[in-house]
Protein backbone atom coordinates (compact mmCIF):
# COMPACT_ATOMS: atom_id res chain seq x y z
CA UNK A 1 0.00 0.00 0.00
CA UNK A 2 1.13 3.55 -0.68
CA UNK A 3 1.77 6.22 1.97
CA UNK A 4 -1.55 7.88 1.08
CA UNK A 5 -3.42 4.60 1.68
CA UNK A 6 -1.77 4.22 5.09
CA UNK A 7 -2.66 7.81 6.00
CA UNK A 8 -6.30 7.25 4.98
CA UNK A 9 -6.53 3.91 6.83
CA UNK A 10 -4.86 4.93 10.09
CA UNK A 11 -6.30 8.47 9.97
CA UNK A 12 -9.89 7.23 9.51
CA UNK A 13 -9.69 4.68 12.32
CA UNK A 14 -7.95 7.00 14.81
CA UNK A 15 -10.30 9.90 13.99
CA UNK A 16 -13.33 7.70 14.76
CA UNK A 17 -11.85 6.42 18.04
CA UNK A 18 -10.68 9.86 19.24
CA UNK A 19 -13.98 11.52 18.30
CA UNK A 20 -15.92 8.70 20.03
CA UNK A 21 -13.93 9.03 23.26
CA UNK A 22 -14.09 12.84 23.27
CA UNK A 23 -17.79 13.09 22.40
CA UNK A 24 -18.96 10.58 25.03
CA UNK A 25 -16.50 11.25 27.87
CA UNK A 26 -17.65 11.36 31.50
CA UNK A 27 -20.54 8.88 31.91
CA UNK A 28 -21.89 9.71 35.38
CA UNK A 29 -24.15 6.76 36.16
CA UNK A 30 -25.00 3.20 35.16
CA UNK A 31 -28.09 4.26 33.21
CA UNK A 32 -26.00 6.65 31.12
CA UNK A 33 -23.24 4.09 30.58
CA UNK A 34 -25.44 1.12 29.63
CA UNK A 35 -28.47 2.83 28.06
CA UNK A 36 -26.90 6.05 26.78
CA UNK A 37 -29.36 8.09 28.93
CA UNK A 38 -32.05 7.04 26.43
CA UNK A 39 -31.10 9.85 24.05
CA UNK A 40 -30.85 8.01 20.72
CA UNK A 41 -33.08 8.97 17.80
CA UNK A 42 -34.55 6.42 15.36
CA UNK A 43 -31.95 6.91 12.64
CA UNK A 44 -29.10 6.51 15.15
CA UNK A 45 -30.71 3.31 16.44
CA UNK A 46 -31.23 2.03 12.89
CA UNK A 47 -27.60 2.70 11.96
CA UNK A 48 -26.40 1.11 15.20
CA UNK A 49 -28.48 -2.04 14.61
CA UNK A 50 -27.17 -2.38 11.05
CA UNK A 51 -23.55 -1.65 12.02
CA UNK A 52 -23.72 -4.26 14.81
CA UNK A 53 -24.91 -6.96 12.42
CA UNK A 54 -22.48 -6.01 9.63
CA UNK A 55 -19.17 -7.48 10.71
CA UNK A 56 -15.95 -7.38 8.70
CA UNK A 57 -16.72 -10.88 7.44
CA UNK A 58 -19.92 -9.46 5.88
CA UNK A 59 -17.85 -7.13 3.70
CA UNK A 60 -14.96 -9.54 3.09
CA UNK A 61 -16.99 -12.70 2.42
CA UNK A 62 -20.23 -11.52 0.83
CA UNK A 63 -18.73 -10.21 -2.45
CA UNK A 64 -16.60 -13.38 -2.63
CA UNK A 65 -19.71 -15.50 -2.05
CA UNK A 66 -21.47 -13.75 -4.96
CA UNK A 67 -18.33 -14.22 -7.08
CA UNK A 68 -18.35 -17.98 -6.45
CA UNK A 69 -22.05 -18.86 -5.95
CA UNK A 70 -24.12 -15.95 -7.23
CA UNK A 71 -26.76 -13.77 -5.57
CA UNK A 72 -28.89 -16.45 -3.84
CA UNK A 73 -27.56 -15.51 -0.38
CA UNK A 74 -29.80 -12.39 -0.34
CA UNK A 75 -32.80 -14.70 0.29
CA UNK A 76 -31.41 -15.36 3.77
CA UNK A 77 -32.52 -11.80 4.68
CA UNK A 78 -36.15 -12.09 3.51
CA UNK A 79 -37.29 -13.00 7.03
CA UNK A 80 -35.70 -9.89 8.54
CA UNK A 81 -38.45 -7.32 7.77
CA UNK A 82 -41.08 -9.75 9.14
CA UNK A 83 -38.99 -10.25 12.29
CA UNK A 84 -38.82 -6.45 12.73
CA UNK A 85 -42.63 -6.28 12.69
CA UNK A 86 -43.04 -9.07 15.27
CA UNK A 87 -40.44 -7.47 17.56
CA UNK A 88 -42.03 -4.02 17.23
CA UNK A 89 -45.45 -5.41 18.15
CA UNK A 90 -44.44 -7.83 20.90
CA UNK A 91 -40.96 -7.51 22.35
CA UNK A 92 -40.12 -3.79 22.48
CA UNK A 93 -43.30 -2.56 24.22
CA UNK A 94 -42.70 -5.02 27.06
CA UNK A 95 -39.01 -4.12 27.41
CA UNK A 96 -40.01 -0.44 27.57
CA UNK A 97 -42.82 -1.07 30.00
CA UNK A 98 -40.49 -2.90 32.40
CA UNK A 99 -37.65 -0.38 31.84
CA UNK A 100 -35.12 -3.23 31.63
CA UNK A 101 -31.37 -2.88 31.00
CA UNK A 102 -31.14 -6.35 29.44
CA UNK A 103 -33.55 -8.70 27.68
CA UNK A 104 -33.00 -11.36 30.34
CA UNK A 105 -34.27 -9.16 33.17
CA UNK A 106 -37.74 -9.60 31.73
CA UNK A 107 -37.50 -13.39 32.18
CA UNK A 108 -37.28 -13.05 35.95
CA UNK A 109 -40.40 -10.87 36.00
CA UNK A 110 -42.27 -13.43 33.91
CA UNK A 111 -40.74 -16.69 35.20
CA UNK A 112 -38.03 -16.85 37.87
CA UNK A 113 -34.37 -16.13 38.63
CA UNK A 114 -33.06 -19.50 37.37
CA UNK A 115 -34.62 -19.01 33.90
CA UNK A 116 -33.14 -15.50 33.70
CA UNK A 117 -29.72 -16.79 34.75
CA UNK A 118 -29.89 -19.72 32.28
CA UNK A 119 -30.69 -17.41 29.34
CA UNK A 120 -28.02 -14.87 30.30
CA UNK A 121 -25.34 -17.57 30.75
CA UNK A 122 -26.24 -19.10 27.35
CA UNK A 123 -25.82 -15.61 25.88
CA UNK A 124 -22.50 -14.96 27.63
CA UNK A 125 -20.99 -18.27 26.46
CA UNK A 126 -22.14 -17.89 22.88
CA UNK A 127 -21.44 -14.16 22.47
CA UNK A 128 -18.18 -14.31 24.44
CA UNK A 129 -16.79 -16.90 21.98
CA UNK A 130 -18.25 -15.02 19.01
CA UNK A 131 -16.53 -11.77 20.09
CA UNK A 132 -13.15 -13.50 19.73
CA UNK A 133 -14.09 -14.72 16.26
CA UNK A 134 -15.39 -11.27 15.27
CA UNK A 135 -11.80 -10.09 15.79
CA UNK A 136 -9.97 -13.21 14.61
CA UNK A 137 -11.83 -13.95 11.35
CA UNK A 138 -11.07 -10.63 9.63
CA UNK A 139 -7.64 -10.38 11.31
CA UNK A 140 -6.44 -13.58 9.64
CA UNK A 141 -7.43 -12.24 6.19
CA UNK A 142 -6.33 -8.63 6.73
CA UNK A 143 -2.99 -9.65 8.26
CA UNK A 144 -2.31 -11.85 5.19
CA UNK A 145 -3.21 -9.05 2.77
CA UNK A 146 -1.25 -6.36 4.65
CA UNK A 147 1.61 -8.70 5.56
CA UNK A 148 1.04 -7.93 9.24
CA UNK A 149 1.62 -10.24 12.17
CA UNK A 150 -1.68 -11.96 13.07
CA UNK A 151 -1.23 -11.36 16.81
CA UNK A 152 -0.51 -7.66 16.18
CA UNK A 153 -3.64 -7.38 14.01
CA UNK A 154 -5.78 -8.96 16.77
CA UNK A 155 -4.32 -6.54 19.30
CA UNK A 156 -4.77 -3.57 16.94
CA UNK A 157 -8.49 -4.22 16.38
CA UNK A 158 -9.16 -5.27 19.99
CA UNK A 159 -7.38 -2.35 21.67
CA UNK A 160 -8.97 0.32 19.46
CA UNK A 161 -12.41 -1.05 20.37
CA UNK A 162 -11.59 -1.37 24.08
CA UNK A 163 -10.43 2.27 24.28
CA UNK A 164 -13.75 3.84 23.31
CA UNK A 165 -16.12 1.13 24.55
CA UNK A 166 -14.68 1.15 28.08
CA UNK A 167 -14.55 4.93 28.09
CA UNK A 168 -18.03 5.85 26.80
CA UNK A 169 -20.15 2.67 26.98
CA UNK A 170 -23.32 2.53 24.88
CA UNK A 171 -23.09 6.22 23.86
CA UNK A 172 -19.60 5.68 22.44
CA UNK A 173 -20.69 2.52 20.61
CA UNK A 174 -23.66 4.28 18.98
CA UNK A 175 -21.70 7.47 18.24
CA UNK A 176 -18.78 5.69 16.53
CA UNK A 177 -21.10 3.38 14.60
CA UNK A 178 -22.54 6.40 12.74
CA UNK A 179 -19.09 7.30 11.38
CA UNK A 180 -18.15 3.65 10.83
CA UNK A 181 -21.34 3.01 8.84
CA UNK A 182 -20.66 6.10 6.70
CA UNK A 183 -17.16 4.79 5.94
CA UNK A 184 -18.49 1.26 5.23
CA UNK A 185 -21.31 2.25 2.88
CA UNK A 186 -19.38 5.09 1.22
CA UNK A 187 -16.39 2.83 0.56
CA UNK A 188 -18.48 -0.04 -0.81
CA UNK A 189 -20.58 2.18 -3.10
CA UNK A 190 -17.41 3.84 -4.46
CA UNK A 191 -15.87 0.39 -5.05
CA UNK A 192 -19.07 -0.68 -6.88
CA UNK A 193 -18.96 2.40 -9.13
CA UNK A 194 -15.28 1.82 -9.86
CA UNK A 195 -15.65 -1.85 -10.80
CA UNK A 196 -18.45 -1.00 -13.25
CA UNK A 197 -16.38 1.84 -14.75
CA UNK A 198 -13.43 -0.55 -15.22
CA UNK A 199 -15.36 -2.96 -17.48
CA UNK A 200 -14.25 -2.96 -21.16
CA UNK A 201 -15.69 -0.09 -23.24
CA UNK A 202 -17.60 -2.54 -25.47
CA UNK A 203 -19.44 -3.96 -22.42
CA UNK A 204 -22.40 -1.91 -21.17
CA UNK A 205 -23.96 -2.43 -17.75
CA UNK A 206 -26.78 -4.37 -19.43
CA UNK A 207 -24.20 -6.59 -21.16
CA UNK A 208 -22.49 -7.14 -17.80
CA UNK A 209 -25.80 -8.33 -16.32
CA UNK A 210 -26.29 -10.66 -19.30
CA UNK A 211 -22.80 -12.15 -18.86
CA UNK A 212 -23.40 -12.64 -15.12
CA UNK A 213 -26.86 -14.12 -15.74
CA UNK A 214 -25.71 -16.53 -18.44
CA UNK A 215 -22.96 -17.74 -16.09
CA UNK A 216 -25.49 -18.47 -13.32
CA UNK A 217 -24.62 -15.58 -10.99
CA UNK A 218 -27.98 -13.76 -11.09
CA UNK A 219 -30.26 -16.47 -9.75
CA UNK A 220 -31.53 -14.28 -6.93
CA UNK A 221 -34.69 -16.16 -5.92
CA UNK A 222 -35.29 -19.88 -5.71
CA UNK A 223 -38.82 -21.02 -4.84
CA UNK A 224 -37.94 -24.75 -4.52
CA UNK A 225 -38.71 -26.15 -1.07
CA UNK A 226 -35.64 -28.13 -0.01
CA UNK A 227 -34.63 -28.38 3.65
CA UNK A 228 -31.04 -29.15 2.67
CA UNK A 229 -30.70 -26.09 0.44
CA UNK A 230 -29.59 -23.34 2.80
CA UNK A 231 -30.68 -20.35 0.70
CA UNK A 232 -34.18 -20.48 -0.78
CA UNK A 233 -37.15 -18.12 -0.55
CA UNK A 234 -38.78 -20.51 1.94
CA UNK A 235 -35.77 -20.92 4.24
CA UNK A 236 -35.47 -17.11 4.20
CA UNK A 237 -39.00 -16.38 5.34
CA UNK A 238 -39.24 -19.28 7.82
CA UNK A 239 -35.96 -20.58 9.30
CA UNK A 240 -34.13 -17.26 8.97
CA UNK A 241 -37.17 -15.48 10.42
CA UNK A 242 -36.69 -17.46 13.64
CA UNK A 243 -32.96 -16.71 13.62
CA UNK A 244 -33.60 -12.97 13.18
CA UNK A 245 -36.32 -12.89 15.83
CA UNK A 246 -33.92 -14.49 18.23
CA UNK A 247 -30.94 -12.36 17.23
CA UNK A 248 -32.73 -9.00 17.27
CA UNK A 249 -35.19 -9.80 20.05
CA UNK A 250 -33.14 -11.74 22.59
CA UNK A 251 -29.44 -11.13 21.85
CA UNK A 252 -28.35 -8.34 24.15
CA UNK A 253 -25.85 -7.00 21.57
CA UNK A 254 -28.89 -5.97 19.50
CA UNK A 255 -31.45 -5.38 22.29
CA UNK A 256 -29.09 -2.84 23.89
CA UNK A 257 -29.07 -0.83 20.65
CA UNK A 258 -32.80 -0.11 20.66
CA UNK A 259 -33.16 0.09 24.45
CA UNK A 260 -31.05 3.26 24.23
CA UNK A 261 -33.83 4.97 22.25
CA UNK A 262 -35.50 8.20 23.33
CA UNK A 263 -38.92 6.53 23.28
CA UNK A 264 -40.76 3.41 22.18
CA UNK A 265 -41.54 5.14 18.86
CA UNK A 266 -37.88 5.93 18.16
CA UNK A 267 -36.89 2.31 18.86
CA UNK A 268 -39.66 0.95 16.63
CA UNK A 269 -38.68 3.29 13.80
CA UNK A 270 -35.04 2.21 14.20
CA UNK A 271 -36.06 -1.43 13.73
CA UNK A 272 -38.32 -0.51 10.78
CA UNK A 273 -35.40 1.37 9.18
CA UNK A 274 -33.34 -1.83 9.51
CA UNK A 275 -36.21 -3.83 7.96
CA UNK A 276 -36.41 -1.46 4.99
CA UNK A 277 -32.69 -1.13 4.27
CA UNK A 278 -31.12 -4.49 5.11
CA UNK A 279 -32.26 -6.49 2.06
CA UNK A 280 -31.26 -3.75 -0.46
CA UNK A 281 -27.93 -3.31 1.37
CA UNK A 282 -27.10 -7.03 1.12
CA UNK A 283 -28.24 -7.02 -2.50
CA UNK A 284 -25.82 -4.17 -3.33
CA UNK A 285 -22.88 -5.89 -1.59
CA UNK A 286 -23.62 -9.14 -3.48
CA UNK A 287 -24.02 -7.23 -6.74
CA UNK A 288 -20.57 -5.69 -6.26
CA UNK A 289 -19.25 -9.28 -5.98
CA UNK A 290 -21.03 -10.23 -9.21
CA UNK A 291 -19.57 -7.17 -10.97
CA UNK A 292 -16.11 -8.21 -9.75
CA UNK A 293 -16.86 -11.61 -11.35
CA UNK A 294 -17.77 -9.91 -14.66
CA UNK A 295 -14.62 -7.74 -14.41
CA UNK A 296 -12.55 -10.92 -14.13
CA UNK A 297 -14.22 -12.36 -17.23
CA UNK A 298 -12.42 -9.65 -19.22
CA UNK A 299 -9.27 -9.29 -17.08
CA UNK A 300 -7.37 -12.44 -16.15
CA UNK A 301 -7.97 -13.33 -12.49
CA UNK A 302 -5.33 -14.96 -10.28
CA UNK A 303 -5.53 -18.76 -10.24
CA UNK A 304 -5.69 -18.60 -6.44
CA UNK A 305 -6.80 -15.44 -4.64
CA UNK A 306 -4.73 -15.94 -1.46
CA UNK A 307 -1.42 -14.73 -2.86
CA UNK A 308 0.62 -15.65 0.20
CA UNK A 309 -0.25 -19.32 -0.36
CA UNK A 310 0.34 -19.20 -4.14
CA UNK A 311 3.73 -17.51 -3.54
CA UNK A 312 4.66 -20.45 -1.32
CA UNK A 313 3.88 -22.84 -4.21
CA UNK A 314 5.95 -20.73 -6.64
CA UNK A 315 8.91 -20.90 -4.25
CA UNK A 316 8.51 -24.65 -3.73
CA UNK A 317 9.55 -27.78 -5.62
CA UNK A 318 6.12 -27.66 -7.37
CA UNK A 319 7.01 -24.52 -9.32
CA UNK A 320 7.00 -26.28 -12.71
CA UNK A 321 3.57 -27.83 -12.19
CA UNK A 322 2.30 -24.41 -11.11
CA UNK A 323 3.81 -22.73 -14.20
CA UNK A 324 2.17 -25.32 -16.50
CA UNK A 325 -1.19 -24.75 -14.84
CA UNK A 326 -0.73 -20.98 -15.18
CA UNK A 327 -0.04 -21.31 -18.91
CA UNK A 328 -3.15 -23.45 -19.48
CA UNK A 329 -5.20 -21.10 -17.31
CA UNK A 330 -4.13 -18.05 -19.36
CA UNK A 331 -4.86 -19.83 -22.67
CA UNK A 332 -8.33 -20.85 -21.44
CA UNK A 333 -8.97 -17.30 -20.24
CA UNK A 334 -8.17 -15.83 -23.66
CA UNK A 335 -10.40 -18.37 -25.44
CA UNK A 336 -13.22 -17.71 -22.98
CA UNK A 337 -12.89 -13.95 -23.37
CA UNK A 338 -13.28 -14.24 -27.15
CA UNK A 339 -16.36 -16.44 -26.76
CA UNK A 340 -17.83 -13.97 -24.25
CA UNK A 341 -17.44 -11.03 -26.65
CA UNK A 342 -19.18 -13.12 -29.34
CA UNK A 343 -21.93 -14.07 -26.87
CA UNK A 344 -22.54 -10.41 -25.96
CA UNK A 345 -22.84 -9.58 -29.69
CA UNK A 346 -25.28 -12.47 -30.18
CA UNK A 347 -27.36 -11.29 -27.19
CA UNK A 348 -27.55 -7.77 -28.63
CA UNK A 349 -28.58 -9.24 -32.00
CA UNK A 350 -31.19 -11.39 -30.17
CA UNK A 351 -29.85 -14.55 -31.86
CA UNK A 352 -31.07 -17.14 -29.32
CA UNK A 353 -29.59 -20.19 -31.06
CA UNK A 354 -26.12 -18.65 -31.25
CA UNK A 355 -26.38 -17.34 -27.66
CA UNK A 356 -27.12 -20.85 -26.36
CA UNK A 357 -24.27 -22.36 -28.37
CA UNK A 358 -21.77 -19.73 -27.15
CA UNK A 359 -23.06 -20.02 -23.59
CA UNK A 360 -22.35 -23.73 -23.73
CA UNK A 361 -18.79 -23.02 -24.99
CA UNK A 362 -18.22 -20.45 -22.22
CA UNK A 363 -19.50 -22.88 -19.56
CA UNK A 364 -17.20 -25.61 -20.83
CA UNK A 365 -14.17 -23.27 -20.72
CA UNK A 366 -15.21 -22.04 -17.27
CA UNK A 367 -15.40 -25.64 -16.02
CA UNK A 368 -11.90 -26.28 -17.32
CA UNK A 369 -10.64 -23.11 -15.57
CA UNK A 370 -12.36 -24.22 -12.35
CA UNK A 371 -10.62 -27.61 -12.63
CA UNK A 372 -7.26 -25.83 -12.91
CA UNK A 373 -8.11 -23.89 -9.72
CA UNK A 374 -8.80 -27.21 -8.02
CA UNK A 375 -5.40 -28.50 -9.18
CA UNK A 376 -3.74 -25.38 -7.74
CA UNK A 377 -5.49 -26.02 -4.41
CA UNK A 378 -3.96 -29.51 -4.38
CA UNK A 379 -0.51 -27.93 -4.82
CA UNK A 380 -1.25 -25.43 -2.04
CA UNK A 381 -2.09 -28.34 0.28
CA UNK A 382 1.02 -30.27 -0.77
CA UNK A 383 3.23 -27.31 0.14
CA UNK A 384 1.41 -26.48 3.38
CA UNK A 385 -0.90 -29.13 4.78
CA UNK A 386 -2.57 -26.64 7.12
CA UNK A 387 -3.28 -24.03 4.41
CA UNK A 388 -6.88 -22.89 3.87
CA UNK A 389 -7.86 -23.69 0.27
CA UNK A 390 -11.12 -21.75 0.30
CA UNK A 391 -10.02 -18.40 -1.15
CA UNK A 392 -13.51 -16.87 -1.36
CA UNK A 393 -12.77 -14.34 1.40
CA UNK A 394 -9.73 -13.01 -0.49
CA UNK A 395 -11.51 -12.32 -3.80
CA UNK A 396 -12.78 -8.80 -3.09
CA UNK A 397 -9.72 -7.36 -1.36
CA UNK A 398 -7.40 -8.93 -3.96
CA UNK A 399 -9.45 -7.14 -6.63
CA UNK A 400 -9.17 -3.91 -4.58
CA UNK A 401 -5.40 -4.17 -4.07
CA UNK A 402 -4.63 -5.14 -7.69
CA UNK A 403 -6.98 -2.77 -9.51
CA UNK A 404 -8.22 0.20 -7.49
CA UNK A 405 -6.30 3.50 -7.44
CA UNK A 406 -4.20 4.84 -4.55
CA UNK A 407 -6.41 6.16 -1.78
CA UNK A 408 -9.28 3.77 -2.52
CA UNK A 409 -7.23 0.85 -1.22
CA UNK A 410 -6.73 2.57 2.14
CA UNK A 411 -10.42 3.47 2.25
CA UNK A 412 -11.50 -0.11 1.57
CA UNK A 413 -9.21 -1.42 4.33
CA UNK A 414 -10.76 1.23 6.61
CA UNK A 415 -14.17 -0.26 5.66
CA UNK A 416 -13.06 -3.72 6.81
CA UNK A 417 -11.49 -2.52 10.08
CA UNK A 418 -14.50 -0.27 10.82
CA UNK A 419 -16.86 -3.20 10.33
CA UNK A 420 -14.77 -5.39 12.66
CA UNK A 421 -14.70 -2.64 15.28
CA UNK A 422 -18.41 -1.76 15.12
CA UNK A 423 -19.66 -5.30 15.76
CA UNK A 424 -17.01 -6.06 18.39
CA UNK A 425 -17.90 -2.86 20.28
CA UNK A 426 -21.59 -3.83 20.48
CA UNK A 427 -20.65 -7.30 21.66
CA UNK A 428 -18.34 -6.07 24.45
CA UNK A 429 -20.94 -3.50 25.50
CA UNK A 430 -23.65 -6.21 25.71
CA UNK A 431 -21.41 -8.76 27.46
CA UNK A 432 -20.59 -6.17 30.09
CA UNK A 433 -24.26 -5.21 30.59
CA UNK A 434 -25.38 -8.82 31.01
CA UNK A 435 -22.51 -9.66 33.38
CA UNK A 436 -23.20 -6.56 35.50
CA UNK A 437 -27.01 -6.54 35.53
CA UNK A 438 -27.99 -10.22 35.30
CA UNK A 439 -25.22 -11.85 37.32
CA UNK A 440 -23.10 -9.41 39.36
CA UNK A 441 -25.78 -6.98 40.53
CA UNK A 442 -28.54 -9.60 40.76
CA UNK A 443 -26.74 -12.52 42.39
CA UNK A 444 -23.28 -11.47 43.66
CA UNK A 445 -23.16 -7.85 44.98
CA UNK A 446 -26.77 -6.84 45.41
CA UNK A 447 -26.63 -3.59 47.37
CA UNK A 448 -23.75 -1.48 46.14
CA UNK A 449 -23.83 2.13 44.98
CA UNK A 450 -24.56 3.19 41.40
CA UNK A 451 -20.95 4.40 41.17
CA UNK A 452 -19.74 0.91 42.10
CA UNK A 453 -21.82 -0.72 39.34
CA UNK A 454 -20.66 1.91 36.84
CA UNK A 455 -17.03 1.09 37.67
CA UNK A 456 -17.80 -2.65 37.54
CA UNK A 457 -19.39 -2.26 34.07
CA UNK A 458 -16.25 -0.57 32.79
CA UNK A 459 -14.08 -3.31 34.29
CA UNK A 460 -16.30 -6.04 32.78
CA UNK A 461 -16.05 -4.32 29.35
CA UNK A 462 -12.27 -4.32 29.71
CA UNK A 463 -12.29 -7.96 30.89
CA UNK A 464 -14.44 -9.16 27.95
CA UNK A 465 -12.30 -7.13 25.54
CA UNK A 466 -9.10 -8.76 26.80
CA UNK A 467 -10.76 -12.19 26.74
CA UNK A 468 -11.87 -11.59 23.13
CA UNK A 469 -8.28 -10.70 22.14
CA UNK A 470 -6.97 -13.75 24.02
CA UNK A 471 -9.52 -16.03 22.36
CA UNK A 472 -8.76 -14.50 18.94
CA UNK A 473 -5.05 -15.10 19.54
CA UNK A 474 -5.50 -18.78 20.30
CA UNK A 475 -8.34 -19.37 17.82
CA UNK A 476 -5.97 -20.69 15.15
CA UNK A 477 -5.03 -23.60 17.41
CA UNK A 478 -8.48 -25.13 17.04
CA UNK A 479 -9.50 -26.71 13.78
CA UNK A 480 -12.81 -25.63 12.25
CA UNK A 481 -13.32 -23.18 15.08
CA UNK A 482 -14.94 -20.48 12.95
CA UNK A 483 -17.48 -22.93 11.63
CA UNK A 484 -18.08 -24.21 15.16
CA UNK A 485 -18.71 -20.74 16.55
CA UNK A 486 -20.98 -19.81 13.63
CA UNK A 487 -22.98 -22.91 14.41
CA UNK A 488 -23.10 -22.00 18.06
CA UNK A 489 -25.57 -19.19 17.32
CA UNK A 490 -28.05 -21.52 15.67
CA UNK A 491 -27.59 -24.17 18.38
CA UNK A 492 -28.64 -21.78 21.18
CA UNK A 493 -30.79 -19.12 19.52
CA UNK A 494 -33.80 -21.42 18.99
CA UNK A 495 -33.94 -22.37 22.66
CA UNK A 496 -33.54 -18.78 23.85
CA UNK A 497 -36.23 -17.59 21.43
CA UNK A 498 -38.51 -20.42 22.61
CA UNK A 499 -38.17 -19.21 26.23
CA UNK A 500 -39.12 -15.65 25.16
CA UNK A 501 -42.04 -16.76 22.97
CA UNK A 502 -43.44 -18.86 25.83
CA UNK A 503 -43.06 -15.79 28.06
CA UNK A 504 -44.97 -13.58 25.63
CA UNK A 505 -47.67 -15.88 24.23
CA UNK A 506 -48.17 -18.86 26.58
CA UNK A 507 -49.26 -17.39 29.91
CA UNK A 508 -50.29 -20.85 31.10
CA UNK A 509 -46.66 -22.05 31.19
CA UNK A 510 -44.69 -21.09 34.32
CA UNK A 511 -41.02 -20.85 35.26
CA UNK A 512 -40.21 -24.40 36.35
CA UNK A 513 -41.80 -25.97 33.25
CA UNK A 514 -40.04 -23.63 30.80
CA UNK A 515 -36.68 -24.11 32.55
CA UNK A 516 -36.85 -27.92 32.22
CA UNK A 517 -38.25 -27.58 28.67
CA UNK A 518 -35.35 -25.31 27.65
CA UNK A 519 -32.72 -27.75 28.92
CA UNK A 520 -34.41 -30.72 27.19
CA UNK A 521 -34.88 -28.77 23.95
CA UNK A 522 -31.21 -27.79 23.97
CA UNK A 523 -30.19 -31.44 24.42
CA UNK A 524 -32.44 -32.40 21.46
CA UNK A 525 -30.96 -29.65 19.22
CA UNK A 526 -27.41 -30.71 20.08
CA UNK A 527 -28.42 -34.35 19.40
CA UNK A 528 -29.87 -33.43 15.99
CA UNK A 529 -26.71 -31.53 15.14
CA UNK A 530 -24.59 -34.52 16.17
CA UNK A 531 -26.60 -36.79 13.85
CA UNK A 532 -26.35 -34.33 10.94
CA UNK A 533 -22.67 -33.56 11.48
CA UNK A 534 -21.84 -37.27 11.41
CA UNK A 535 -24.21 -37.88 8.48
CA UNK A 536 -26.21 -40.51 10.39
CA UNK A 537 -29.46 -38.55 10.68
CA UNK A 538 -32.59 -40.29 9.37
CA UNK A 539 -34.14 -38.59 6.34
CA UNK A 540 -36.77 -36.76 8.42
CA UNK A 541 -34.07 -35.23 10.64
CA UNK A 542 -31.70 -34.13 7.87
CA UNK A 543 -31.48 -30.33 7.81
CA UNK A 544 -29.10 -27.40 7.44
CA UNK A 545 -28.16 -25.61 10.67
CA UNK A 546 -30.55 -22.69 10.03
CA UNK A 547 -33.46 -25.01 10.85
CA UNK A 548 -32.07 -25.70 14.38
CA UNK A 549 -33.52 -22.29 15.29
CA UNK A 550 -37.02 -23.46 14.37
CA UNK A 551 -36.64 -26.88 16.01
CA UNK A 552 -35.23 -25.49 19.30
CA UNK A 553 -37.95 -22.86 19.53
CA UNK A 554 -40.84 -25.24 18.81
CA UNK A 555 -39.50 -27.87 21.23
CA UNK A 556 -39.30 -25.36 24.11
CA UNK A 557 -42.91 -24.33 23.50
CA UNK A 558 -44.11 -27.94 23.16
CA UNK A 559 -42.18 -29.34 26.14
CA UNK A 560 -43.05 -26.31 28.26
CA UNK A 561 -46.75 -26.76 27.63
CA UNK A 562 -46.59 -30.52 28.28
CA UNK A 563 -44.58 -30.15 31.52
CA UNK A 564 -46.96 -27.49 32.78
CA UNK A 565 -49.87 -29.81 32.04
CA UNK A 566 -48.14 -32.69 33.85
CA UNK A 567 -47.30 -30.48 36.83
CA UNK A 568 -50.90 -29.40 37.14
CA UNK A 569 -51.99 -33.04 37.26
CA UNK A 570 -49.12 -34.10 39.51
CA UNK A 571 -47.96 -31.17 41.72
CA UNK A 572 -45.09 -33.24 43.19
CA UNK A 573 -43.21 -32.73 39.88
CA UNK A 574 -42.67 -29.11 40.85
CA UNK A 575 -40.19 -30.14 43.52
Amino acid sequence: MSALDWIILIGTLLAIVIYGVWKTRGAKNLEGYLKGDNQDKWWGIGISIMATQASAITFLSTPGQAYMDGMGFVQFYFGLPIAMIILSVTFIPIYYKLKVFTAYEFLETRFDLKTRSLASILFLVQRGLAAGITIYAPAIILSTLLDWNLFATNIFIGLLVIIYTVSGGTKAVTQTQKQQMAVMMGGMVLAGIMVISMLPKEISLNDAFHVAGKMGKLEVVDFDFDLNNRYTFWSGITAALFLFMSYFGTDQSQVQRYLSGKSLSESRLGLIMNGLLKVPMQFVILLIGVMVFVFYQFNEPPMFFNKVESEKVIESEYYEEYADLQENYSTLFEEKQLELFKMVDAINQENEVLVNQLKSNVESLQNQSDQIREDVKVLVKLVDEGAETNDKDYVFMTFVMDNLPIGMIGLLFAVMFSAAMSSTASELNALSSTTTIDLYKRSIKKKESDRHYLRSSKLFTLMWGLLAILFATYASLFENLIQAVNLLGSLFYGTILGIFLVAFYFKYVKGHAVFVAAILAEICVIGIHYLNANEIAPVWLKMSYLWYNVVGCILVILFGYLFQLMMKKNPSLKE
Partner: protein
Amino acid sequence: MNNDISNNDQENKPPVFKSWKGWYALLIIVLAVLVFLFYLLTNTYS
Protein backbone atom coordinates in the same frame (compact mmCIF):
# COMPACT_ATOMS: atom_id res chain seq x y z
CA MET B 1 -49.95 -6.01 30.89
CA ASN B 2 -51.73 -5.95 27.49
CA ASN B 3 -53.75 -2.89 28.51
CA ASP B 4 -50.58 -1.11 29.55
CA ILE B 5 -49.02 -1.89 26.21
CA SER B 6 -52.06 -0.53 24.38
CA ASN B 7 -51.81 2.66 26.45
CA ASN B 8 -48.13 2.82 25.63
CA ASP B 9 -49.06 2.57 21.93
CA GLN B 10 -51.46 5.49 22.34
CA GLU B 11 -48.66 7.59 23.84
CA ASN B 12 -46.27 6.58 21.06
CA LYS B 13 -48.05 7.63 17.89
CA PRO B 14 -46.04 6.96 14.74
CA PRO B 15 -44.98 9.66 12.32
CA VAL B 16 -46.52 9.78 8.79
CA PHE B 17 -49.08 7.00 9.28
CA LYS B 18 -52.12 7.05 11.59
CA SER B 19 -51.08 3.86 13.32
CA TRP B 20 -48.09 1.52 13.42
CA LYS B 21 -49.98 -0.87 11.16
CA GLY B 22 -49.22 1.55 8.29
CA TRP B 23 -45.47 1.13 8.86
CA TYR B 24 -45.79 -2.64 9.14
CA ALA B 25 -47.78 -2.77 5.90
CA LEU B 26 -45.10 -0.64 4.23
CA LEU B 27 -42.41 -3.14 5.32
CA ILE B 28 -44.35 -6.07 3.85
CA ILE B 29 -45.11 -4.18 0.61
CA VAL B 30 -41.45 -3.18 0.17
CA LEU B 31 -40.36 -6.79 0.79
CA ALA B 32 -42.93 -8.09 -1.73
CA VAL B 33 -41.81 -5.53 -4.34
CA LEU B 34 -38.15 -6.46 -3.79
CA VAL B 35 -38.87 -10.20 -4.14
CA PHE B 36 -40.84 -9.47 -7.35
CA LEU B 37 -37.96 -7.37 -8.74
CA PHE B 38 -35.45 -10.09 -7.84
CA TYR B 39 -37.70 -12.63 -9.59
CA LEU B 40 -37.74 -10.43 -12.70
CA LEU B 41 -33.96 -10.03 -12.54
CA THR B 42 -33.50 -13.81 -12.25
CA ASN B 43 -35.81 -14.49 -15.21
CA THR B 44 -34.54 -11.67 -17.42
CA TYR B 45 -30.85 -12.47 -17.28
CA SER B 46 -30.68 -16.22 -16.65
